[in-house]
């Protein structure tokens, strides 16, 4: 049998939810540890080796000077670097603070901000070349499996770029915008979740980030027509991916 691919899982500024989604693969776990050589995973292992990795899954964004050094080091030691989840792609929810002066945030949280060393939060792509993005907060485990299977087969993973709307149609959901006049983000958000929220009676909030080439301005206009004010619209785009080029304008740049 060919040598097992060496894989590393790394955490930066984030919540560990993406790593939890790996551990969520309870049915596949025993196969995964057979097929991959898990060399680095601090949350799961005490013996870790971060050298010469075939794949690195990066969870979390970059918000401290040492994280910049760390991500560059991992890039140097990795063949295939994956931005694993929304934080690694563009900072996700915690990037909402990028619109607030850093000192103001530090003063709200800490009695002595002089001891805090933190910068605005960015995705890892701001600093290093990224080979693949796994969208989602957290990414769906089917997507993770798709990526890992592709790695074993040495083919390019087929990652989705269509909007949530496509998955809503496949599920047979009635449209929440047209029928209920609710501000659903589905038309501009990448699928891959299986339209979890609309299927369960909730509008899409956007946790898989922008689809490819979305028309954010048109959706913002629809939101205005159904009664949202400018502040409401800004909040909706300044949530999971306010830092993305696709949503920047609507997020209030």
């Amino acid at each position: 049998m060919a040598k097992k691919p060496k894989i590393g899982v790394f955490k930066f500024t984030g919540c560990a939810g993406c790593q939890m989604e790996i551990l969520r693969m309870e049915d596949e776990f025993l196969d995964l540890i057979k097929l991959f050589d898990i060399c680095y995973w601090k949350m799961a292992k005490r013996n870790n080796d971060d050298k010469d990795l075939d794949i690195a899954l990066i969870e979390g964004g970059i918000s401290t000077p040492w994280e910049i050094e760390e991500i560059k080091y991992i890039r140097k030691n990795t063949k295939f670097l994956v931005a694993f989840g929304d934080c690694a792609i563009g900072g996700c929810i915690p990037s909402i603070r990028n619109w607030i002066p850093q000192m103001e945030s530090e003063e709200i949280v800490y009695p002595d901000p002089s001891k805090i060393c933190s910068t605005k939060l960015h995705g890892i792509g701001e600093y290093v070349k990224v080979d693949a993005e796994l969208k989602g907060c957290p990414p769906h485990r089917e997507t993770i499996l798709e990526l890992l299977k592709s790695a074993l087969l040495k083919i390019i993973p087929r990652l989705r770029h269509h909007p949530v709307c496509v998955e809503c149609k496949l599920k047979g959901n009635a449209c929440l915008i047209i029928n209920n006049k609710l501000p659903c983000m589905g038309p501009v958000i990448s699928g891959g979740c299986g339209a979890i929220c609309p299927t369960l009676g909730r509008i899409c909030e956007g946790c898989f980030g922008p689809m490819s080439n979305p028309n954010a301005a048109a959706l913002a206009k629809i939101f205005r027509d159904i009664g949202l004010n400018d502040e409401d619209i800004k909040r909706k785009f300044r949530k999971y991916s306010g830092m993305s080029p696709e949503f920047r304008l609507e997020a209030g740049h």
Partner: protein
Amino acid sequence: MTEKTIKVDYIARVEGQGAINIGITKDGKVENLQFKIFEPPRFFESFLVGRKYDEVMELTSRICGICPVAHQITALRAVENAMGILISNQTKDLRKLMAISAHIQSNVLSMYFLSLPDLMGYESIIAMGKDHLDIVKRALMLKKLGNDITQLIGGRSVHPVTMIVDGFTSIPSKKNFEVIRKRLIDAKKAAFETVDLFTNIKIPDFTRRCEHVAISNSKSYAINDGHLKSTQGIDINEMNYRDFIFEKQKPYSTALHSYIKDRDSFMVGPLPRVNLNLEQMSDDARNAAKNCGVKFPNYNPFVSHLARAIELVHDIDESIEIIDRLPLKEEHSNHMCKSGFGAAITEAPRGSLYHSYVLNNNGVVKKADIVPPTAHNAYNIEKDMREFVQTIIDEPLEDITLKCEMLVRAYDPCISCSAH
């Protein structure tokens, strides 16, 4: 002069980024002991200001990927308290089931994946697979059960989506619950095996009588509602939390350290819960506690693993109880935005979690205040470690290092939470 240094630059098998630094002098004194949390802060309390009341649950969920359910419920309850909303019994029950399922998942993760490898002499659960496949399979089965319940009610296990202010966007069918109910009954055996495993495994013999804190109520095993009580007599209504619990900053930690006003550090988590609320546990859980040979209340932090196992028995029993009484009827909520202050304390898997918000008339957040379990525990972990190191000071440096890590892991810290 420091003669020996115990140094762990990045503690493995815990959530998030923390380090240990301890100096030992020639005459065996401990100095410069630091539980260094270097997790980058994310400033949730800053960017929540200006967001709407109905987003708070969704946003604070992202504080933690292991205990999103606890953050969601605490946020929802704090917002409901601010707006004077009283939720239905069905919502209360479904939320409790959500919370319990998250406890099952998280406690199994902590016991089997994060701590058991130390106690059995392996570097990870991955390494245990070769010699102890049955144990690994049991861990995966139990974890999947917890996650599947969260997913059934919440749509997915990490950052679930159906819980909203005053209700749920969607409620699962009776049929789906029947399948889960059967799996819960089957899992009971594995829960007892878990209690046996952690009863018989050797843990460090170390006791420090510190104040143990958890929410408590007379009617049920408190997870989502109760007064904050302690082994030394505090009894706090959640709305008055800030009159009693204070925080201070340490220069080496991005997590603030909590302490009780005019008193000292304290412990939250499964062990304080079992110590304070054993009477409210299910019959089988109480019997398991009685028959395991370990006396409660107990002040050995390493007994936390066993406390998690006993909770697992209770969690399965209470889940079945809730499923049996759920009416599963559709409910509609009519609430109005109202200005005000609301606070809530719940028991996250790793211990008491506090959220409070000030809302304006339009339901926009004006102030947010969040204290996660690991911020409550950080100071106490240091105090435990200081005494613990003294008891093992003659052992080889490697052993002291591993044991200090094990102490941290007994608390099952969620470091991302603590530096929210």
